[in-house]
Structures are given as C-alpha cells and as structure tokens.
C-alpha cells in the first residue's frame, strides 16, 4: 500500500524535527581549540622572525627597511592555519583566534602588516650569530632580511649588516613565470 508507506514516512520525518542549521542568520561559534586566523599582538612582538622561518606555506614575510624598522607581513590567502607560528613564538605574541568567516573577494583583505621598531645594539648594530653550527639551524634565515612584500615571496638572502643596496635590488623582484600559466 503506497498510502500507508507515505504515512509511515511522514511519521519518521516528524520524529527528528528540523535538523538544519540556521547558520548565516544565526551566529555559530567555533569549538574550543579551533585554529582560525592568527592574530599578532604588536605590543609583544620583538621581531625575531621565528614565525617567518617556520611557516610551512611561507605566508609570513620580513623586510628590513632600515636599521631600525622591520616590516612583518602576513598573507592569509595561502595560510594553512597549522598554528606553528603561535607554538614557537617566544613572547606569545601570536594567538590563533576562532575567527573563520574570512571569505572575501579581495586577496588583500586577509593580510596583516606590522611595522616593528628594532632597537640598535651599541656594539654591533644587531646581535646575530651568523656562524651556524648545525644543519637544521642553517635552514633558518638570520640577520637582516629582504623579502618581497609586493610579490609575497620569501627571498633566501640575509646579511649580518644592513645593506641598502640589497634592499633596492630585491625591491623590484619579479617571480619567475611558469610554463602554461
């Protein structure tokens, strides 16, 4: 009998009621320990560049404009929200917030840039140990960094003294074009 089966269906459908979320019209907070957009606290950041060295997607870029000013740029468009930066920040300046509503039409909407003031050491400018002992530490970029903020590229080039000519050189960096693209 098709009618009895239909009635059975209605009874079965009524039992659970409405399960659909009313999400875009009602807020839905993320669960605890959810890793959303990382947020920098510029009052705590010391500009060590540890987050930039360890970011797997190379979303965090560092550029020394002069002896005293270092710019940190976070490009959230290719961030994988792994939380590595927040884990290793020595000053706990990075917090993984629970913000996940990041959809946007413009790529630049998910960026964060911080202008850091770096204090000058009286003896050597900035104290960087450029003589690296082990292989894993050699992967780290130490000293003054000149990443391309325009093309969002990490350039593996560092110096132990501020070099304005390298800054000018890398200022006009173009990413090599790929075949087919």
């Amino acid at each position, binding site marked *: 009998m098709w009618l009895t089966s239909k009635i059975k269906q209605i009874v079965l459908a009524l039992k659970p009621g409405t*399960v*659909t*979320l009313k*999400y*875009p*019209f009602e807020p*839905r907070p*993320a669960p605890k320990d959810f890793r959303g957009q990382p947020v*920098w606290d*510029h*009052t705590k*950041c010391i500009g060590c560049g540890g987050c930039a060295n360890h970011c*797997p*997607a*190379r979303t965090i870029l560092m550029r020394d404009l002069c*002896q*005293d000013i270092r710019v940190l740029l976070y*490009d*959230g*468009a*290719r*961030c*994988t*929200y*792994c939380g590595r930066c927040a884990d290793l920040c020595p000053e706990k300046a990075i917090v993984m917030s629970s*913000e*996940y*509503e*990041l*959809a*946007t*039409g413009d*790529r*630049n*909407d*998910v*960026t*964060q*840039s*911080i*202008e*850091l*003031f770096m*204090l*000058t050491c*009286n003896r050597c400018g900035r104290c960087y140990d450029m003589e690296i002992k082990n292989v894993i530490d050699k992967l780290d970029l130490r000293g003054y960094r000149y990443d391309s903020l325009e093309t969002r*590229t990490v350039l593996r080039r560092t110096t132990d003294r501020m070099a304005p000519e390298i800054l000018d050189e890398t200022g006009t960096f173009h990413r090599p074009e*790929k*075949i*087919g*693209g």
Partner: protein
Amino acid sequence: MAALFSKLATKAFPKSLWVYHCNSGACNGCDIEILNVLTPYYDIERFGMKLVGSPRHADVMLLSGAVTRPTLPLVKRAFEAIPSPKLVFGIGSCAAGGGCWFDTYNVMGGGATAVPVDYLIPGCPPRPEAIIYGVALALGLVDKKAAPIELKQVEFPIDAYLRNKAWEERNVIYRLIKD
C-alpha cells in the same frame, strides 16, 4: 532583444545558483567539506543551490586545490564551458593562494593562475560554515568581516642609531683604543 535577455539573466542569476565542483588536484579535504555543505545539516539548497555534474548546466564553479600542471588546461576548458554570467569560488587555501604549494615546480600556484577567482574562502580545509558564509556573502545576505590590519609599534623619539653614531664620533677614548 539580446540586451533584454542579458538583463534578465543578470537579475535572475543570484536566485538559484547551480554549482559545479571542480577538483584541480586537491587532497580531498575541501571536497569532503563541500559534500558536507550539501547534506541536510548544513542545507545549502535553502539558497537554491544544487550540485550538477556538467559545467554546461552550472552557474558557479567551486574550485578546490592548487591547480597542478596536468589539470590546468582542463580547468580552463571547464571554466569556458560554463555559460556566462558565472562565478568562481576558490575553496581552501590551495585554490585561494596556492597553499603550501604556491612555489612548487609542477603546481601553478592557486586558482587565480588558471581562472579569475571571484570569492576566496581560506581555510585548510574551510569549515562548512565558512563555505556557507562565502556563499551568503556572494548572495549579499551577510556583511564582509575580513579587512586588512595594519599595526605599528610606537617609535622612540630619538633615532637611536644616529645617536649612537654621534656618540662614537665624539668619544675620544673609544678612538684611542681602536688605534
């Protein structure tokens, strides 16, 4: 007559968007979240959206994955097959900006290198709610929350570098030790 039809098409376009799911070398994380969005729990058919199998029936392309080199011509062909007007959603960090693979030799690095991406939904993978938020943003149901943040540390009143340099120049003992 053609102008009237194009006007009608642009007006009727946001009423019921049919989506075509295009995987351009994703790890299946984003694809599972897209399937999640189609389930009754996160019912996306409330907005008149429906998954279709052919790009010729679709209005919206859900692009997931950093475009790998073998899939690049296929993604371009699928995009051209969608009748205009059309939208492209870059779902996940890979489609939005290339993810971890933005620099790799066999990956084009992001959906923007193959097709014009209208809306990007970052996340690895994005939550189903984040995808729904992106869809609602495209339909104009919610306001955009993301905005660029620019912060600046307070600078010292005196330029420390110049001050130290001046001190070095006028410090006689310092010069004597050097000689």
